[in-house]
């Protein structure tokens, strides 16, 4: 792109910037930050009700919501839960089970997102420290050079090592969402066909 074309583009930018959402400095993932999983993203109509007030639903949620439970195990538990229920009980209990699983997944997801944000802030601090040490190195007397270089090396290494884990950390909310989706589909499949 020529300088003239860039100049035109940048002249046009302020109007667009005003209309664009502000970047979130504490969110380091390529996936856009979404505050919570909404019910309507996985269920045709937004269900309501107190899932914690229904002991059998709360028990199912307690069994399959914890993070170590694999989607396949949870889906099998949903099938077992639904099998003995008649149509009316399914209509009443399965949407409540979805609500409970969604609430628990969102709670776990909030915790993961907090960790990712803390990670991003720590990385930003580390990057600043590396920059500061580099600036210091440029003017430092020879006697302190080796020590400064050693500190810069370890700060940069810590930053680089952590950065490589970022991709995996950002996939955790996606995996939680994927498992909740599998649960929602299993619950939907068990709903009576009207």
């Amino acid at each position: 792109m020529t300088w003239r074309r860039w100049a035109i583009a940048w002249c046009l930018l302020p109007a667009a910037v005003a209309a664009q959402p502000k970047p979130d400095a504490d969110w380091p993932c390529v996936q856009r930050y979404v505050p919570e999983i909404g019910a309507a993203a996985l269920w045709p109509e937004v269900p309501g009700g107190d899932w914690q007030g229904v002991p059998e639903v709360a028990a199912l949620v307690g069994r399959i919501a914890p993070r170590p439970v694999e989607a396949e195990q949870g889906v099998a538990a949903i099938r077992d839960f639904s099998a003995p229920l008649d149509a009316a009980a399914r209509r009443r209990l399965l949407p409540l089970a979805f609500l409970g699983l969604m609430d628990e997944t969102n709670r776990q997801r909030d915790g993961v997102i907090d960790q990712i944000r803390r990670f991003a802030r720590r990385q930003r601090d580390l990057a600043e420290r590396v920059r500061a040490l580099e600036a210091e190195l440029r003017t430092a007397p020879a006697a302190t050079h080796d020590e400064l270089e050693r500190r810069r090396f370890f700060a940069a290494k810590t930053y680089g090592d952590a950065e490589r884990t970022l991709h995996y950390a950002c996939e955790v909310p996606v995996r939680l969402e994927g498992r909740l989706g599998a649960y929602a589909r299993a619950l939907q499949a068990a709903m009576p066909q009207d």
Partner: protein
Amino acid sequence: MPRILTLPAALLLAGALLAGNGARAETIMVSNEKDNTISVLDGETLKVVQTVKVGERPRGIVLSKDGRFLYVCAGDSDRVDVVDTTSWKVVRRLPSGSDPERAALHPDGRRLYVANEDDNLVTVVDVERGVVLQEIPVGVEPEGMGLSPDGRYVVNTSETTNMAHVIDAGSGKIIANVLVGARPRYALWQPDGKRFWVSSEIGGTLSLISADDWKVVGQVSFSIPGVPREAIQPVGMAFSADASKLFVTLGPANRVAVVDVATREVQRMLLVGQRVWNLALSADGSKLYTTNGVSNDLSVVDIEAMRVTRSVPVGQAPWGVVVKP
């Protein structure tokens, strides 16, 4: 004397008829971003009949004009793989520039326009000679590629610069830069060639741009009760067969929006699989196929009934989809 078919002859005839039916069924191709494969599905049975190993991180896929080849943007391998749609093997590798994400084929069937996400370039590749014809500098993180039906203009969207760049296909020069919503992902021309649509993933909007003066003449926003607005991330677009409706994928909202093209009203929000990326119309225009990157499936939408009828498991993180009649 009446002619009676012998059993072997009858079986042969039945076989020929069945083969004939099979040959008429369309073929659906899906790129699986995390599997490095293309899933090939029979359009009639919706079964995966082939899985083709390709380069790393395949996303954008385009059929050749005659349907004999599938061009696959293998982003992490920095190339475009050419898959023979009869033998289902990679038969050639085309140069593409760095990190090809999406591509669009010129109506001449030779020039493939490839968006290089890492290099801020659009690379023009001659698919017959296998050479790079031109590199066109554009904005930061180019992705969407849309060719006007007459082949005069190529529209590229740049995700970070938030612009649609209109390129004169003849000269390869940018003739207009149009500001659109944040992180524009895809550009699609109306079949009449008078306007094109751009989807903005973070802006959560569509922009409609006129080819008369390259100005934004309309915008569409989406809202879904019970879904945070941040989750509504428009990316893929496809027209209905009569171009009266525009289908738009909304990412982690797990919905496909149905937009009336004339009034720009959102008519429906169909619940599909998770993290819906792209979509394609069946050859007869009766169905839509969507790729769902988190639930690892393809949703099938009956357009007349406006209902999702099937979910078909494919590979890991399905992204692109095309239909070969």
